[in-house]
Every structure is written in C-alpha cells, then in structure tokens.
C-alpha cells in the first residue's frame, strides 16, 4: 500500500446532499474518492448510534449532511 487513504462514512439526506452527489456525478465533477455514502431518508433519521457504529467499525471519520 503506497499511502494511507481515509475512509469517511457519509450519511446523506435523500433529498439534499444525496441529490447534490447525484448532480455532481452527472455533471462529471471530480472529487476525493474517500467517502462511503449511506443514503438516509432524511437527516432526521440520523442517530448518534449510527455515527458511533461507523467509528467502531473502523471509519476514520463521519460526515452527516442534510
């Protein structure tokens, strides 16, 4: 392995950031490949348990976006 790359577990709201991610994709924009996306129906579905579960399973960071 050449260099360590972080894993960032991202909780994205279906209607906001997930849409933005989709738009970024269809617009062929370049961005860092370190995020692992979990789509949640709304940021209201987010729970501190999720963030902790991600960290416990070895994620390097958690990102919640509405």
């Amino acid at each position, binding site marked *: 392995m050449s260099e*360590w*790359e*972080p894993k*960032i577990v991202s909780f994205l709201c279906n*209607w*906001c*950031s*997930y*849409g*933005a*991610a*989709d*738009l*970024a994709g269809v*617009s062929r*924009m*370049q*961005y*860092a490949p*370190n*995020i692992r996306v979990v789509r949640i129906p709304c940021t209201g579905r987010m729970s*501190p348990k999720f*963030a*902790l579960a991600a*960290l*416990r*399973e*070895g*994620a*390097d*960071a*958690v*990102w*919640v*976006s*509405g």
Partner: protein
Amino acid sequence: MMKNLLEFMGVEPDRIHFSWISSAESTKFVEVVNKITAKVKAIGPNQRFVKQAAKVA
C-alpha cells in the same frame, strides 16, 4: 451537542462533520468532500472508538 460530548471524551473534533447542502449545490458538495478528506488526512487514521476484532485463540 454530540460532537461536543465526543470531544469531551477525547475524540478529535475533525472526526465528525456536519453540513447543509441543497440538491442543487453540486459544486458545494465537491468542495465539502475535498475539504473533509483533507482534514481527515491531516489527523491520520482513527485509533479511538474502534472496536478491535475479538482475538480468537
């Protein structure tokens, strides 16, 4: 508040991020992804709150 408590217990503040991005803001999305990735790279791998796999003898 959750972030505060994590920090209180000694987790690096850059381990958890929150943001607001509308579905039309793909440029902001890209910007935030890159910013967060850079920040996490700077603090290095997560050593805390990781559950080590059970060692089987």
